[in-house]
């Protein structure tokens, strides 16, 4: 994606509206050509190691019962975004939803009922005009947390991330250079953990201090801000990235989102993907190597197997190592949460598991 000026963004949005009016004038059915954001319209670019968007479109018509409302909603959001950019104001996607939600005059129906309706349309507009949400003055409330030997300038305030106690630095919704700048950093690598609880455990043990690294979590499936800041730290600070998740299909996928990007936001991969990220674990070989107790095993359910099957078909999981890992997991039939490491001792992860794995380059 190209970086556009505000003026160019506004022009693109206005053009969208003009086209609709012209279609109406001709008595035609106005349509919006929205690039599809589904598995069928993404491909894995082996050269870059990223998931990218193909060029299939979905036509969204106004004179179509199933699409009419969505069409109206799309134009409503386009109009509101234009206003935001003009005013140079920033809104969260939830706030945007509230500025647009109202009853349609004369009907017992709302323009939007839930945020679930407006969020995907924002993504539609991103691909429609080829501009990232972050440039449209929209952000999502992020949940990620970061700690480590780094100083950040956030909206002009200097923050030392090694002095933020047990909570750490909350990653803001927009982490573009105009908001977040990196100052001093002594870290040697970045460790990303799937879960908040594991992050808190490691933070309490001052893992990042002892191992001189940055410690990040996206609290489960990461939102855009965590992925974006990871990418920036990785490229701008030239730090390797290690990812530590649960041993189950969901954990594997979270790793892949950090690394190659997600299907739904394939157009965002370039801005967020870290193709060189390594998967530390928890993985099948660890079960034996670290002699995990039987009690830590959780039986896989139908949903797990289904997701595992899907995963094994994704192009970006088609490496020998990953196919082996997935096959073994299927055979094993159990999952292990990263939290389970405490069964081996409360500081086991910080003092033994992670350092040895990194030292031995025991990753995928």
């Amino acid at each position, binding site marked *: 994606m190209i970086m556009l000026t505000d003026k160019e963004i506004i022009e693109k949005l*206005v053009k969208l509206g003009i086209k609709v*009016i012209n279609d109406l*004038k001709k008595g035609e059915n106005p349509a919006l050509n929205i690039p599809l954001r589904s598995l069928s319209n993404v491909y894995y670019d082996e050269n870059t190691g990223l998931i990218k968007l193909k060029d299939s479109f979905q036509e969204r018509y106004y004179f179509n019962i199933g699409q009419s409302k969505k069409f109206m909603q799309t134009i*409503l959001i386009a*109009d509101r975004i234009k*206003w935001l950019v003009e005013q140079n104001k920033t809104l969260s996607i939830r706030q945007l939803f509230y500025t647009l939600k109202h009853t349609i*005059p004369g009907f017992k129906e709302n323009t939007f009922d839930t945020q679930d309706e407006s969020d995907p349309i924002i993504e539609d507009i991103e691909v429609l005009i080829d501009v990232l949400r972050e440039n449209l003055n929209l952000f999502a409330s992020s949940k990620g947390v970061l700690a480590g030997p780094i100083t950040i300038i956030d909206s002009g305030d200097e923050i030392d991330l090694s002095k933020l106690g047990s909570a750490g630095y909350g990653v803001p919704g927009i982490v573009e250079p105009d908001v977040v700048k990196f100052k001093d950093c002594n870290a040697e690598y970045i460790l990303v953990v799937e879960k908040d609880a594991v992050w808190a455990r490691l933070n309490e043990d001052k893992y990042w201090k002892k191992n001189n690294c940055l410690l990040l979590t996206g609290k489960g499936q990461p939102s855009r801000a965590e992925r974006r800041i990871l990418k920036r730290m990785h490229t701008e600070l030239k730090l390797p990235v290690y990812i530590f998740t649960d041993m189950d299909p969901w954990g594997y996928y979270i790793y892949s989102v950090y690394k190659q990007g997600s299907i739904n936001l394939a157009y965002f991969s370039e801005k967020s993907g870290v193709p060189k990220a390594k998967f530390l674990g928890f993985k099948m070989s660890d079960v034996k190597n670290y002699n995990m107790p039987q009690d830590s095993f959780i039986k896989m359910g139908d949903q797990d197997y289904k997701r595992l099957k899907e995963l094994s078909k994704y192009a970006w999981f088609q490496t020998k190592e990953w196919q082996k890992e997935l096959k073994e997991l299927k055979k094993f039939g159990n999952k292990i949460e990263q939290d389970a490491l405490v069964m081996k001792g409360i500081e086991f992860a910080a003092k033994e598991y992670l350092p040895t794995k990194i030292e031995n380059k025991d990753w995928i």
Partner: protein
Amino acid sequence: MDGNTIAHELAKSQKSISVAEFFEKNRHLLGFDSPIKAILTCVKEAVDNSLDASEEVIFELKRRALKYYKEIQKLKDKNSERAKKLKEKISNLKKEIIHVLPDIEVRISEAQEEFRIVDKSNTRRGTISIRKDGKNIIRIDDKEIKFERQRVSNFKLKDKEFEIFASKNNKGEYEIEYIVNDLKEKFIAKKTTTTRYIVSVQDNGPGIVPEQIPKIFCKLLYGSKFQSLGGGKQSRGQQGIGISAAVLYGQLTTGRPAYVVSKISPRDPAVYYKLLIDTLNNSPEIIEKGFDDDFTLEHGTRIEIELEGTYLSSGEKSIFEFLRLTSIANPYAKITFIDPTGKKTIFQRTTEKPPKEPLKVKAHPHGIEIGTLQRMCKNTDKRSLLSFLTQDFSRIGASKAKEIIKKAKLNPKMKPSELTRAQVEALLKKIQSTNIMKPPTDCLSPIDHDAIIKELKAEFEPEFVTAVTREPEVYRGMPFQIEAAIAYGGNLKDETRLIRFANKVPLMYGRGGCAITKAVSDLDWRRYSLSQSGGRGLPQGKIAILVHICSVWVPFTSESKSAIASYPIILKEIKLALQECARQLNNYLRRRHREQRKKQRINIFVKYSTELVLALSRLTGKNEKEVEKIMKECLTKRYGDDYVNR
């Protein structure tokens, strides 16, 4: 034989019982098995008779008109004086027919007002019966005092032992002072619901010759309608039990005679009878006879029967409903109903077209059963098999008859009564395998689908109605014809109505065991855009289904004539008729659904257009009014009238 066997002993207690006595013990067979049904059956029998009687006049007039018409056809000069005269006669007859179309008045009134006497402690002490005929009775404790007076608002009764003073207060109760042995007590008498009604049915039919009246009303199985198997004529009653059974029922429950008055022409006096039935001898017992000067019609008959019964003011089994349905089946009849409260309802005629006269027919050979054929062979007066076939059956000509006889390897000259059972069987087999024309339709008088549609429209104002009259068919040698109709929406309630008719008479009972119900239930209505749980039973929705079977001999399942027997061919015909109607309904419903969908679609586009217009105008900076105009023009261009007239 010395007559000492057990059989002889038994023979002493074996005696014939009179028909009347038999029915006295088997009321249910005639439809008098419950108080609700009893009053309805009484009305039904009387109304059937009245409609039949009125039709007799119409048919006679039609026959006369036909005679004149034929005479005109024979004349060489169609404009001669004679022809003109005949034409005038015909047009007068036509006017007269309209004048004599059935005009029936049904009145149900309480035979008596009943009051319950209670004392101060609310203990029941007696009753008062104030009767329409003025023969009032008051009972207090163990005393029963009769007193005759019309219009009783207060009365005094005196005897050696007691005095009674009664006066009505403004609540309609009697306040009573009862003095006995110098002791004075005060009572209140409150009105209770009565169980005694007088059913009165009056028609403008031809009237009945006075001598015939007692027999017609008081002799069971008497009348012109009783027919032998193997042919006949379509009529409402079939056995001639009906009205006399109603008289008998009244007599059994109230002990009161039936009142019948009839007048046969403006010149003759109206003659009345008060009649009872001698149940042992099945013969009328005349209680009183005289002239009724209050009978104002030029001709016609009225019967009044007092009976015990329960009157329903509404519902599927009510008299109101019965009359309403009767008026649907007889669109040329005007029926006036006056209920016990005095409320008058008139079911107007929707047509002045007189009904078609059903002609007497001989048996149609198809579907006849072996027993029937055997009996016909035995009873016929024809001397040869050939003439038996050609003359006792319809639709068999000489060549057909010869063909059948030849195939059955019989001698055309042999006497029918001399056929052996095997020969009769062979004959029947060949008859059935031979192609024979369908029975003549002139023996059947359907309601006519156009008339049904008119009636259903008048009664329910449905949004859709369709009806079909099938071609006649044959079961057991009997011609029959099915008509069906479906009405949808409008005033119909959200509860499926099944309206059953047999020979223009509504069937109010026996729904479960009726071929019509079975045929309706067997159809998969879901195929016709209606809901039906499990694909069986009645369809659901604002729908009325009407089925009429008319036949020379309607196959009822019992003497109470409430349900049609399920002959396969009858079931098949009903289903075909229903399917035809259902297809029409389906087309309508689907068209309506499509139109609704179309409207819904346009409404969706219109609904979102206000928002869209506003957002577009803000987004592009174009004038809102201008964008609105563009939107409206686009909608008009795309959806035209559907948008403009939405």
